């Protein structure tokens, strides 16, 4: 659905994007992760045909962003990292205005506005002036605006920034609903735990270069060295530590918040063997769980070392 090939953007002497490539299949939610200034917004603006790349190509639903920006605009909804609301308009008028800009006939616009306000939970505020809405509600209205022409692809630049936890959860629920509706969504964010839960794919970008891209768990596994176990034992912590240190698959053992965290090399069979060894040594195990390295670890790993 989205294909980016060797995208490069140079501003004077500064390279904002350096041969960035990735693909997002239809129906996926792609998390675009990177520190501030890494090139996330630049990439999204190029995808939205708002910025010309210095080199490389990008396609949205098969349409080249350089050759056919009009087709791209037809197939894509873009929500920038700012609100972009007009004063003096009500929520309905605001959506009606953008629907008119997409040349949607007047007869259909009223229903579209009402449906979208319902989708983002603003139906009861349809007549409220846009500038009096709270930050979270404005953000939802902007999401509705990006959807007025029913695009197949959504580009969301930091949709959760500045939102309180409750508004973030609500935004996440709306995005999940949109995924169920078959939309392909690209979200740039630096709130990583949320992306892990929401996204099926992830791309980690730093200093204009794509450090890692692919399905979330593949990226995490690829970047975090070894897997981690969290083991809770009843009293016999010393015996457990001794047993674990005696195993060849164990690389490190730590005690974190009263629980043993062990990093090991291997797969699920190795984990089962570790549990077996502990019980064989007479350790009474009350909890045994695999810890996902997490996107944060992967992100730190990807952005700390000089890849490539």
């Amino acid at each position, binding site marked *: 659905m989205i294909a980016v090939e060797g995208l490069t953007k140079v501003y004077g002497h500064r390279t904002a994007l350096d041969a960035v490539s990735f693909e997002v299949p239809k129906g996926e939610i792609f998390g675009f992760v990177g520190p501030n200034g890494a090139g996330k917004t630049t990439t999204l*603006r190029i995808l939205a045909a708002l910025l010309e790349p210095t080199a490389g190509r990008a396609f949205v639903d098969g349409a*080249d962003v*350089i050759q056919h*920006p009009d087709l791209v*605009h037809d197939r894509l909804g873009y929500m920038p990292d700012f609100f972009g609301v007009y004063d003096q308009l009500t929520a309905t008028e605001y959506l009606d205005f953008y629907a008119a800009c997409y040349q949607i006939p007047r007869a259909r616009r009223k229903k579209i506005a009402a449906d979208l306000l319902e989708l983002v939970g603003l139906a009861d505020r349809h007549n409220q002036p846009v500038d009096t809405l709270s930050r979270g509600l404005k953000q939802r209205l902007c999401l509705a605006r990006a959807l007025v022409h029913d695009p197949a692809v959504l580009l969301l630049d930091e949709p959760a920034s500045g939102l309180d936890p409750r508004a973030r959860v609500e935004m996440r629920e709306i995005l999940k609903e949109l995924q169920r509706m078959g939309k392909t969504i690209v979200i740039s964010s630096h709130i990583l735990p949320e992306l892990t839960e929401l996204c099926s794919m992830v791309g980690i970008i730093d200093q204009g270069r794509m450090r890692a891209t692919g399905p979330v768990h593949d990226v995490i596994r690829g970047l975090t060295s070894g897997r981690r176990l969290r083991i809770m034992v009843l009293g016999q912590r010393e015996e457990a530590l001794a047993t674990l240190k005696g195993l060849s698959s164990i690389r490190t053992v730590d005690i974190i918040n009263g629980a043993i965290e062990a990093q090991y090399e291997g797969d699920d069979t190795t984990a089962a063997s570790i549990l077996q060894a502990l019980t064989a040594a007479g350790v009474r195990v009350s909890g045994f769980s695999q810890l996902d390295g997490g996107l944060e670890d992967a992100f730190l790993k990807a952005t700390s070392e000089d890849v490539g």
Partner: protein
Amino acid sequence: MNRVAIAVWNPIVAKEYRSRMRTWRSPLAMTVYILLLGGLGWAIFSAMAASARSVFNGSPANYGQALFLYLVLFQMVLLAFITPALTAGAISSEREHQTIDLLFVTKLPSFSILWGKLLASMSFVLLLLLLSVPLFSLVFLFGGIELDQVLAAFLVTAVAALTLGVIGIACSTAFRRTLPATVAAYGASFILLAGSLLYGLLFPTAIDPNATAAPAPPAVSYISPLLPLVTIGTSQPVTWYGIGSGFSSGAGGGMMCSGTPGGAQSCVPLNANGVAIGKGVATPFYRNPPQATGTIIPSGLFAGWQYWQATVTLQLLISLAALVLSAILIPPTRHLPWARRTRAARSA
């Protein structure tokens, strides 16, 4: 909707009307405008009435003409202050509020954004002009002004306002921020109104002794709407401005003129030492150049045109140039068609 309908009536216009008319600023601007124009009219009328009480120096028709002249000139100056303020922020404020990208990602062509902004601003200017119509109708009470003069004056004013509006939009497109755009728009407005007139003062048309037509101010000065407004208001030829005061056009030399019993003058060119050039009787005598009559431009590039026609033409040309410049500057990704093909080839 077809393309023409979209271009003429696009959503920007409707949105701008809503936004503009829902604030207190628009009614206030309209009230202040009418109060200023009406106040000036009242002041002029009072002054004329007071002077008429002491010395009778004219017919009511003269009052009507003077009142009309002052009102059209003041209206033009007022609009020169208002129009740049309306348009200089049109595009730059969208940039500042970061809403322009949201328009660029819609199916609305970039030019429609410009056009919509221009149409909405100019509608407000037109509204102000319409509001002033009742004031101008008072002029007819005194007489001395014909309907065609009023229409011509309004046309010149409206076209001048349009030019200032398009220049404002061009500044708003060229500058990223509203403040420099506004300063540039007011600068352009000043040059258009006063700068072009200053040109006529600094570089007046030299009188050509061979000319068969009366001299006219330099064509650059026709850009200013004030010149045609004065000619429309007074119905007098322009002899007081933009024309060299003597026959001398260089260092030394000049003309020697002598009166004839019939009252006509005949002149002969002199060299730098004041000696007549030529060979006695064979030397052609130069007539005094004819005097301009009426409000028609007697000579030069626009010879035979009315002053207001020349002004309207020049202003429309300036508007077109400013509009084309804005259309080139506004798109977020702009490249010429051949550049696009080259890029595509390189990427492939």
